């Protein structure tokens, strides 16, 4: 299989539910070896798209192909692995039993002990899934997606509810699995997750694909920059520091935290020029690319949420 082989192809797919148009002429191709992030708010059409890919539903219009076949044909799904919803594990079955049940559907699954060990669940093998912690259930869900050694892994919100450390370990596992030759499609509400995992991002909103590009390209497409600076509070500045944001051009969102001002600007250069010309005494000027969250909100037409920016290490911003 060459790197250009399509693992998953959706062509002009439309699906409605009653009066709701869940997918509106969506086309998406995922090629072998890609690590694609699927991003969008609730109701964007992500879940519907995944349900077509996994053969649960049929599109009203258009075609979906999985490894070149119809996803509704079980043979097309032999090389597909996906996560169940965390809350959806059968509560009375033991961890080892659920793994065996899923593994039994694949021709060459990982040995149970190996997969449980890999996900740190070896000690939990005999516990019923209902007795697991949220984090353990999440890890089991990802383990179930990988136990059949799938060529394509579809992960729906893989680390929702995990603490930071557990999340990073799970990402490392997924990157490792991807590096060994698999194709990965991951959906998430955690923008940090998409930024950390994916090479390519597909942004969906209102049943259509809003953007489909490399992460850097998506970020570049939305010319939103985060500009931060501090103003002296004692009023020694030439201008009025209190209202400085109101005098700046192209502000699409702002936040004030004591002396520190954070502004989302559509044109950072013009904003900085205006800031200098304003005469306000500022210090610690910082201009950064927008986070994926900000880019995504700009694409979906919502006001960027600068009111509560997530704390974000700079090396992740650099991705």
């Amino acid at each position, binding site marked *: 299989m060459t790197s250009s082989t399509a693992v998953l192809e959706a062509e002009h797919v439309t699906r409605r539910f009653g009066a709701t148009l869940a997918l509106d002429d969506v086309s998406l191709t995922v090629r072998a070896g890609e690590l694609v992030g699927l991003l969008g708010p609730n109701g964007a059409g992500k879940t519907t798209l995944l349900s077509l890919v996994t*053969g649960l539903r049929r599109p009203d219009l258009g075609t979906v192909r999985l490894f070149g076949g119809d996803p509704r044909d079980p043979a097309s799904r032999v090389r597909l692995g996906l996560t169940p919803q965390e809350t959806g594990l059968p509560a009375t079955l033991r961890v080892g039993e659920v793994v065996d049940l899923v593994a*039994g559907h694949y021709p060459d699954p990982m040995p149970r002990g190996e997969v449980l060990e890999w996900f740190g669940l070896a000690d939990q093998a005999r516990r019923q899934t209902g007795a697991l912690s949220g984090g353990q259930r999440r890890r089991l869900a990802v383990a179930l997606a990988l136990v059949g050694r799938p060529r394509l892994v579809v992960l729906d919100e893989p680390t929702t509810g995990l603490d930071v450390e557990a999340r990073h370990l799970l990402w490392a596992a997924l990157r490792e699995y991807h590096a*060994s030759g698999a194709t990965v499609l991951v959906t998430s509400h955690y923008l940090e997750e998409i930024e950390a995992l994916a090479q390519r991002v597909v942004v969906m909103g209102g049943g259509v694909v809003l953007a489909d590009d490399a992460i850097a390209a998506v970020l570049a497409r939305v010319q939103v920059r985060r500009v931060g600076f501090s103003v002296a509070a004692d009023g020694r500045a030439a201008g009025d520091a209190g209202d400085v944001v109101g005098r700046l051009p192209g502000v699409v969102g702002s936040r004030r935290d004591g002396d520190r001002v954070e502004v989302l600007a559509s044109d950072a250069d013009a904003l900085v020029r205006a800031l200098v010309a304003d005469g306000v005494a500022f210090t610690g000027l910082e201009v950064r690319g927008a986070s994926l969250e900000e880019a995504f909100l700009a694409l979906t037409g919502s006001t960027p949420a600068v009111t509560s920016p997530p704390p974000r290490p700079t090396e992740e911003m650099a991705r």
Partner: protein
Amino acid sequence: MTTLPTSDPVPTRPAPVGATSVRTPHPGPDDARPLVRPTLRLAGLHARYQFLETVRVPIAVIGNTVFPALAMFFFVVPQRAVASDPVAATAAVGQLGMFAVMSTCLFTYGAGVSEDRQQPFDPYLRSLPAGAGPRMVGRVVNGAAFALLGLLPLVIIGWLFTDAAVTLGRLLLSVVVIAASALPFLLLGLAVGYSLSAKAALPVVQVLLFPMAFAGGMFMPPEFFPGWLDAISRALPSRAGRDLLVQALTGEAAPATALPVLVGWGVLFAALVVWAYRRDEGRRFH
């Protein structure tokens, strides 16, 4: 794989993930034409885990098994007129047996299916590389197994505490008859399961089961029915199944209408299942 520290009682840190395993799990080959596992194997797999899921909530199993046995003890064994008459006692075992099977079918397929449909694990299972067949086979196998489990105490009580008697040939014939008569109830259960939510399915199953059982002569032999009730009773699938089973067990002839009545209901319930399943497809998902 190396030994890994997994003794942490509150594993907030899943140490082994990706970090220390010697052998990296890797995806399977991409050249071979992937094959779905053989249907029989998958059916066995689903039957096994459905069985485990059911027995881990033992109240349903106990209910289905104990109720007919209790009815036998309270209503048949103390009545010496019935218990000491081989034909009447055998018929009593038969009609309560039919009740046990009917009850298992309606609860397993009615309440059970509608409950499963609401589990988020249901769409997950349907996305695994297997068709609908293996799960359905698993359901039927489990239904049959639990129905049989419900019959055992009845047969044992009938054998030990009454003069019920049956030849081996008749017993074998009865097993065939009871399996065939179970079909319309299996279909009715599925129709309920696929058309109603779990909350609605349970009371509906109970409302269907008990009047149908009573009017079908499963608690009281239909010979004691007034004429009008007997007329209604003969049109019911429960009565038809009961009569056919009693005929197989004792040789007491069932009314000529029994078989057509049972088949007629079977066809109607099958149509209901198809309707409910199709209607359900669009709504099952959000």
